[in-house]
């Protein structure tokens, strides 16, 4: 019965939105079990695991939603790496996010639309990423915390050859630097 109680504690912890580290202590519970109660314990453990996985998924998607609200794509005009005034608040938002959590490092990806030549777009994407990085640094983010990568027109956000798709593809995209 102690184990069931422990499971209940774990489950209740999940439901109140526990920290990730508490969640990760749970798995050993599911691997143990006495012979006579094995079935129900296993069953319960499986349910517990599913709950844990779902909670983790929810947490990740909430985190992604939260990040998406902060890390918004910065859009550019055709063949331009000048940041228009209307896009600046997006970069300012990222800079305050980075200043709040000094452990975070950022990758700025530069992208282009499908028009234009392959080589020139690769260079243009680099300039777009650098322009965004420059503004982050100007806002007080340490240069060493921001990397830039150009993808030219290789990784479009939208397919299709419409002005709408092109406009969405001419972008600088923020990504948390997982390499730290």
């Amino acid at each position: 019965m102690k184990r069931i109680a422990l499971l209940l504690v774990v489950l209740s912890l999940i439901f109140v939105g526990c920290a990730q580290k508490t969640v990760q202590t749970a798995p050993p519970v599911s691997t143990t079990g006495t012979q006579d109660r094995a079935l129900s314990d296993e069953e319960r453990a499986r349910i517990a695991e599913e709950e844990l996985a779902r909670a983790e998924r929810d947490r990740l998607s909430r985190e992604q939603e939260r990040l998406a609200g902060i890390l918004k794509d910065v859009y550019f005009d055709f063949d331009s790496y000048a940041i228009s005034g209307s896009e600046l608040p997006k970069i300012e938002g990222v800079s305050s996010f980075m200043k709040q959590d000094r452990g975070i490092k950022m990758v700025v990806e530069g992208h282009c639309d499908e028009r234009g030549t392959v080589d020139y777009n690769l260079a243009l994407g680099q300039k777009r990423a650098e322009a965004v990085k420059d503004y982050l640094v100007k806002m007080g983010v340490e240069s060493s915390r921001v990397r830039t990568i150009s993808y030219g027109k290789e990784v479009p956000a939208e397919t299709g050859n419409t002005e709408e798709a092109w406009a969405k593809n001419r972008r600088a995209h923020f990504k948390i630097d997982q390499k730290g």
Partner: protein
Amino acid sequence: MALTLACIMILAGAADAKVYLDVYGTTFKKITIGVPEFKGERTDKSTSEMSGVLNRDLDLSGFFITAPASLIDKELLNEGIQKTEVNFNSWRSIGIDLVCKARVQVANGELSLEAFVYDTLDGSMMLAKRYKAKPSEWRRVTHRLADDIIFAATGEKGIMSSRILFTAGRRNLKEVYLSDFDGQNVTRLTNYRSITLSPSLSPNGKYLAYTSYKEGKPNLYVSDFDKKNEIFVDRSEGMKIGTAWMNNSTLVYSHTSGRTSTIYAFDVGSRSKRVLLQRDGILTSPTVAPDGSKLIFVSDMYGTPQIFSKMLPSGEVKRLTYHGNYNSAPSFSPKGDLVAFACKVGGFEVCTMNADGSNQRVLTNDGSVNDSPQFSPCGRYIIYTSMKGGVNKVNVMLFNGENKRTLRFTDFAEEQPKFAP
């Protein structure tokens, strides 16, 4: 290459007769050629397809109108291949200038092709050749015949036996491939399951340069085919793209990082690099004239991408393009007299100009994105990509923009084609 192809001239001097087509004139009239199905007791699929492949090659060359099979009646079809057996009046009466007669035989595991090309006007023999090869190499033999017919008619060999280097793939997955011109023998040269771009082979074919994202960012590498190893050219921050070789061991590439861009010459032997040019903003697509005398490149120093030249080693920078707000992707003709490039005139079109920037011509006109023009080694063709329905495909045309044809290699989108040395 493993191809053991014996090529025997039956009649010495048959090919160095008059040049039928002066293709460097402003205009020329295409020659109408009839290629009836090849003779031969063997009727297996591959050998009966040979005349079809030859017709396709001659059409692709841009110098011939190939007579449709329906034009050639039974009587003409049943003629022998020897000069005395050919009724030249009948061929001439249906508008045929040249007729190609051939016989295929397969004996003792060897394919032999005997081919004659006659001028129907006077019955003279323009070409007489015999080829021997393995039966499996029937396509290559046919391409060789096509190139020899093109040589006999125009004074220069065709491109049907050449190979094409290109990238192919889909979003986030792109590899470098090498293929025969006809789309056979497609070989994947890289397998990084990443984005690999801008491949370029050294003139001797020993080195392949490319930019790959396999380490998470675009780095520039050279593969050494002899030593089977990989050389790191540049792994610093920023975008590195190698677009051309100056000679067998020197790669020219551009690096954009921070405020500036730099064009480097990298020596594969010593693994050292030297700066050819450094500027604020974008410098890209560097390429060097075949005689090494000058560098051309793209820069946005006046606000939009334009093409510039610089005499090497230390001449002044001269602007070559003024028309429109987008001129990019330059490449030299093998003689160095012409530069092919892409310009924006509504869509992105393939253009040529003289190496000093004069005499600019727009060669494509479909309003889509045409990119990466490169001359054939003979200088008579330009290979490039054209976007159809959102997918890039490799096209080839004559250097004057005539005779555009789409080439097929893979089922993927294909980009950045080059004739392999």
